[in-house]
């Protein structure tokens, strides 16, 4: 009891309490990322280790030393009658209380806030949530072999989404191997030295997971949607196909048939896609964006096993991957699994850069596709920017004003007022290299293609000359912002958005700057991009219609 009394007298117990409370607060700050962002994952463990080691040291120090009016002295040297340990104790009590209040406020205060923690209120637009901050719980890590992993935990449902962006797509192709990126995407499901063709899907589905993949001009993206219970299995399957992919000759032949069927379905028996394919082949004369992602038929028929293995060696390496995990996971477990399954896979020599730059267009280009068609099509394309060009965001607002939905300018004019087309739409490419701003219109049977083209040119010239109204700008901004929130309502949307911003804009955190970037754009910016891009010299026009009667029978 004497020892206990002395511990109390020398404030050792109070120091211990203060230490515990302060450590708890410190750990909370580190874990929540509330003050410092972007700490490495091991920070939390490291801090825990430090405070654990510090605890006995602090206690011994408190026992040994005592604060006196003359400064710090060894407790045994202090005259007991002059001791101010009582006052020091009071100060310690106050410190504990203050820290406790701070800690409780921080922890419970956060819970009382709306759940969308990354929302920053108080914008010039009133209460409309137009600003966002990067959610503190998102973490990223790059392994020594160059594999980058980004994790956004979200525990609403017991499921996980994985997106793996591979930097390889149509732009990495050349005549002879057009469509190979997409064919390769199919072959990634067709067997490794550990697993028979088809096992990848059978194993994943039997564990409750599903998958898909897509190939674009720029990237190939693999997607897995699965219950949390299948997490380690997914790492096993994904790392296995990166390390041990095989291509069985019979499977290559069978999959060739599948891809050809895909081409027949989505292009050859689809007038819209037929014309689109010819448009890209015309608008680009040098850059590989001219090739269809599905490949030209003769290349689909001809590519070889050697083409596949070359492609695999060149592009399928951890340093060419960006993996996103969202859902019911923690960054710690994902990083540990990534290290275990992908860490041992060596980096490859980075693929060669795409050197070809599309030369400036020197005059309008025009194509005609003649096939049986009840409804003629008119497509118009203009060379525009890449994902990172400053014109890209104003152009997406402008396209929204022109063709985004029933209240848009061109819909109102051409569909509702003049009834010269039955639908009008548009988009822009946002890839690594400058792509197209694209308009597509469907005319009623017998529609006047030349007249509609003329009206389109007039309207595009008008927006380049006169710009847009403030109301139009504000509407387009609101639509983009609402789309931003819609995109983040699911773990799938979160994975897609993070991955696209990381890969195409170079930094996933830019995703959360989007609302303020959208708000910062002026009507003048829109007029300028219209004037810059919507020029006849920069345009490719394509029409699709039935051949004149004389030519129908060949």
């Amino acid at each position, binding site marked *: 009891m004497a020892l206990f009394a002395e511990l109390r007298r020398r404030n050792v117990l109070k120091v211990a309490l203060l230490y515990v409370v302060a450590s708890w607060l410190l750990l909370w700050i580190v874990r929540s990322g509330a003050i410092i962002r972007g700490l490495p994952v091991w920070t939390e463990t490291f801090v825990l280790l430090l405070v654990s080691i510090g605890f006995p040291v602090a206690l011994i120090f408190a026992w040994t030393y005592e604060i006196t009016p003359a400064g710090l002295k060894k407790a045994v040297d202090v005259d007991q009658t002059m001791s101010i340990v009582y006052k020091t104790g009071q100060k310690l009590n106050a410190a504990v209380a203050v820290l406790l209040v701070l800690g409780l406020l921080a922890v419970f205060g956060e819970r009382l806030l709306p759940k969308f923690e990354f*929302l920053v209120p108080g914008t010039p637009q009133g209460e409309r949530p137009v600003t966002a901050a990067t959610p503190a719980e998102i973490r990223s890590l790059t392994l020594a072999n160059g594999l980058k992993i980004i994790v956004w935990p979200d525990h609403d449902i017991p499921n996980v989404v994985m997106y793996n962006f591979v930097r390889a797509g149509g732009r990495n192709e050349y005549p002879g191997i057009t469509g190979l990126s997409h064919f390769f995407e199919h072959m990634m499901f067709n067997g490794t030295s550990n697993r028979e063709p088809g096992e990848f899907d059978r194993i994943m589905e039997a564990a*409750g997971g599903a998958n898909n993949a897509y*190939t674009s001009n720029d990237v190939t993206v693999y997607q897995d*949607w699965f219950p949390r219970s299948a997490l380690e299995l997914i790492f096993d399957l994904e790392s296995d196909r990166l390390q041990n992919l095989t291509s069985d000759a019979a499977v290559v032949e069978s999959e060739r*048939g599948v891809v050809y069927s895909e081409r027949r379905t989505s292009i050859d028996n689809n*007038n819209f896609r037929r014309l689109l394919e010819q448009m890209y082949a015309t608008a680009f004369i040098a850059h590989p964006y001219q090739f269809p992602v599905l490949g030209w038929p003769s290349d689909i028929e001809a590519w070889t096993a050697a083409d596949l293995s070359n492609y695999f060696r060149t592009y399928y390496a951890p340093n060419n991957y960006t993996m996103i995990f969202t859902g019911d996971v923690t960054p710690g477990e994902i990083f540990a699994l990534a290290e275990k399954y992908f860490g041992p896979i060596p980096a490859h020599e980075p693929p060669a850069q795409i050197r070809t730059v599309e030369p400036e267009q020197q005059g309008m280009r025009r194509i005609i596709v003649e096939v049986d068609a009840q409804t003629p099509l008119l497509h118009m394309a203009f060379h525009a920017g890449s994902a990172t060009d400053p014109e890209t965001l104003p152009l997406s607002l402008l396209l929204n004003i022109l063709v985004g939905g029933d209240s848009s300018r061109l819909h109102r004019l051409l569909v509702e007022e003049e009834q010269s087309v039955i639908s009008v739409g548009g988009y822009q490419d946002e890839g690594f290299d400058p792509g197209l701003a694209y308009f597509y219109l469907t005319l009623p*049977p017998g529609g006047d293609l030349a007249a509609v083209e003329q009206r389109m040119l007039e309207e595009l010239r008008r927006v380049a000359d006169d710009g847009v109204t403030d109301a139009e700008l504000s*509407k387009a901004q609101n639509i983009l912002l*609402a789309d931003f929130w819609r995109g983040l309502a699911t773990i799938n949307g979160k994975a897609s958005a993070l991955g696209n911003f990381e890969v195409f804009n170079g930094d996933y955190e830019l995703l959360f700057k989007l609302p303020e970037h959208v708000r910062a754009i002026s009507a003048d910016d829109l007029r300028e991009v219209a004037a810059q891009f919507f020029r006849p010299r920069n345009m490719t026009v394509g029409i699709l219609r039935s051949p004149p009667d004389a030519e129908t029978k060949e």
Partner: protein
Amino acid sequence: MKRPPLAFLAMAALLVVATARGQGMALPEFERIELDNGAIILLHEKHDVPLIGVEVIIRGGASNDPEGLAGLSGLLAGLLEKGAGDRDAAEFAESVAAVGGELSASGALEAITISGEFLADDADLLVELLADMLRRPALDAAEMDKLRKRLINFIRAAKDSRLGRLVPIYGNAFLFGDHPYGNPASGSEESLGKIKHRDLLGYYRDYIGADRLIIAVAGDFDSAAMKKNLTSAFGDWRKAPAALIEVTAPIPRTGRRVLLVDKPGATQTYFWIANVGVAIDYPRRAELDIANTVFGGRFTSMLNTELRIKSGLTYGARSTLTRPAQPGSVAIYSYTKTDSTVAAIDMALGVLSDLRATGIDAEMIQSAKNYILGQFPPRLETASQLAGILTQLEHMNLDVSYIDDYGAAVAGADSEIIAAVINDVYPALDDLVFVLLGDAELIREAVTKYGPVTEMSITAPRFRP
């Protein structure tokens, strides 16, 4: 792409519901209010993103369209957006877009539906627009004429570019014949052309009213305020004066018959092989979902394994179940290059025969259970999804056990019952309706082996011969 978009999400048309928090998949709490005039309001607050999702059902859709006027309820749905209250069509579209909202109405087989999503701040506007659409639509004659023309031309455009979408429409028309389930929700070029403005006004007057209305709102709003707002918007609405057409159970087809839709120059044949299946209240839903997952409901299904993975004949093959209030269709759907038409159809029939003769082994049953349970939670992830499920349950007179007990039913499904369900639901090989869309000149002879062939041109302005 590895597989056709949405192909496998479409595996059961109405309510593809399974559930999953492990075994504890369940609907969250929601509030159900029935107004004196019969309107049903369903509310659920969810504050993860600042959005409000709304789903509305007006009972009665294409199956209630008057004879010869298929597409009337769908046309009415489209017109609800073309001017309402004090706003004309342009102003209405502008009001929605100006705040970044989405609101659209469409016609389905058994309902007119409205789906919307607005930012949280715009809850009042959302209610105002909904009430205007439903209670004060302009139904202007010129707007009707314009929309009707456009819908007709959309069908023609689909015949140029969206063949896969048309095949089940031809299919249902051929399978169900004069039964209301044969009506295309989109209408046909011919039936849309016949609709008069007075038909539209008459349909609105007779069939649209509070006792047909189900509204589900889910998302970032205050329930008490929303309830008050919706009650005052719809509380004094009239009931619909006329009864809906009573839809009886369609009779399954016996024997075989073939509809060949000729599209000259098509380089592949699309095929749909079907018979009458089951209704939404089929008591062995979990067992049937397991069977369909294995047969044609996922990538490694029996159909996709044979027709795509092993043989490379197609990009995708699947089986679909539509489950409306009365029995809908059970169908096999795929496509293949013209010269492998017969090979692919024979193979599909072989898989159907195997399913019925051999059934599904225990390992595959377990795999399908895991798959259904593992893929369910993302279907109840967002406010809009939840609003959709709530309206469908109400519409089909199902209670929460339809969701809440489903996980346990899937997990506990018994192999013998699954075998019985397979033979109960999937048609015998002698009783099949075939719809083939392709270049008739090249396949006409070969497909006579499947049964008597009726032929029509894709340019015919209707979906039945």
